[in-house]
């Protein structure tokens, strides 16, 4: 004799599947929350100065050993009248924000590269937003920092702080540069004297994930480290671009084999 077995109601399997999937997604979110690095506390003035001194006094051999490294060259040739700064020298103009993780990544090579042409002062440590991707990427801020050089001028605008509260506004002239050359609207945007421009970061911020400023500075002393390849490779790209603006001055920086090799690849 055959008799029908008591079957599970037809709605149970689909609901069970959806339930299991919901639990999996919840588990993924918990894992992500536990593995996201916390924001390291900003360094005091003395500790910041030590880190800045460390990353801006790397020997030329270190830069030559890395070359382009793992950096992605986002620097494109643009046309326009030469952008000059308040001292009449070719100007490098940075436009970004403190919350932005890509800006956080790009400030490291910008500081390292421009320090080969001049001196920053007043740099402070900060981290990118804790609620954005690549959360809490350690970096510096250009807000209230100054730069002096006999070769170039530097201007920076950090539009918001890491909480995305307004911080600085570009001048109408600076806004015009952003509108003209940063057509994708991506930040960070860097204008190299209206001769070259870049939008975005030349390496992914995850290479700095969970690291302290000092740990990053220490890693730059090792040419084979992932941080060296990314940051110093990016710094070499920026250095070569600035050398184009300064007619390869200073020679001690611009005549190095790695910089000359990169300069040949610039448009």
């Amino acid at each position, binding site marked *: *004799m*055959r*008799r*029908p*077995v008591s*079957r599970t109601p*037809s709605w149970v*399997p*689909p609901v069970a*599947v*959806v339930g299991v*999937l919901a639990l*999996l*997604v919840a588990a*993924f*979110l918990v*894992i*992500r929350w536990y*593995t*996201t690095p916390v924001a390291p506390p900003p360094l005091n003035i003395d500790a910041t100065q030590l880190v800045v001194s460390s990353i801006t006094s790397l020997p030329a051999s270190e830069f030559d050993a890395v070359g382009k490294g793992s950096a992605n060259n986002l620097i494109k040739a643009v046309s326009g009248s030469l952008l000059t700064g308040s001292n009449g020298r070719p100007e490098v103009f940075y436009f970004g924000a403190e919350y932005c993780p890509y800006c956080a990544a790009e400030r490291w090579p910008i500081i390292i590269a421009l320090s080969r042409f001049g001196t920053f002062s007043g740099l402070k440590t900060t981290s990118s*937003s804790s*609620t*954005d*991707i*690549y*959360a809490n990427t350690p970096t510096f801020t250009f807000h209230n920092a100054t730069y002096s050089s006999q070769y170039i001028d530097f201007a920076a605008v950090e539009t918001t702080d890491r909480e995305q509260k307004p911080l600085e506004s570009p001048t109408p002239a600076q806004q015009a540069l952003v509108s003209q050359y940063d057509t994708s609207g991506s930040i960070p945007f860097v204008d190299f004297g209206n001769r070259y421009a870049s939008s975005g970061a030349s390496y992914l911020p995850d290479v700095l994930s969970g690291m302290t400023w000092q740990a990053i500075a220490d890693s730059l002393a090792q040419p084979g480290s992932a941080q060296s390849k990314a940051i110093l490779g990016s710094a070499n790209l920026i250095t070569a671009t600035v050398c184009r603006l300064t007619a390869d001055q200073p020679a001690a920086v611009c005549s190095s084999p790695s910089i000359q090799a990169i300069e040949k690849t610039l448009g």
Partner: protein
Amino acid sequence: MLGLVAGLAGLGISVYLTVVHYSTIALACPANAVVNCEQVLASSFAVIGGSGVPTSAAGIVWFVVSSALAAATWRARGPRLARAQLAWSAIGLVTVVYLVYVEIVLLGAVCIWCSAAHLMVLVIFLVALARLPEDRVAS
């Protein structure tokens, strides 16, 4: 019918993502703390095994087969066809779970186009599950 519609919708999304990958067309997608298609699609997980072939190309193949199975089961019901559809959609669902893991845990960003395709896979799986042969009896 629902499985076929979901399959064609998923196919359309996969074709769109593949065309964007191979062209200079900008992807229509907002970017904020959670949603960031560019972050997901620029990652190493967006291509198959380190090749230049986008994962969405595999999605095209999967949705074509899935749509064909859905069309076949719509025209001619049968336990073997239903089981084949369930097995194929289960493969898709397992892949989706892995891709969602990648998005949330490894990348910390969600691609809404990818999520829409993932949702279509889930719909197809649930339809296949509901179509399991109901003629199982015990003596």
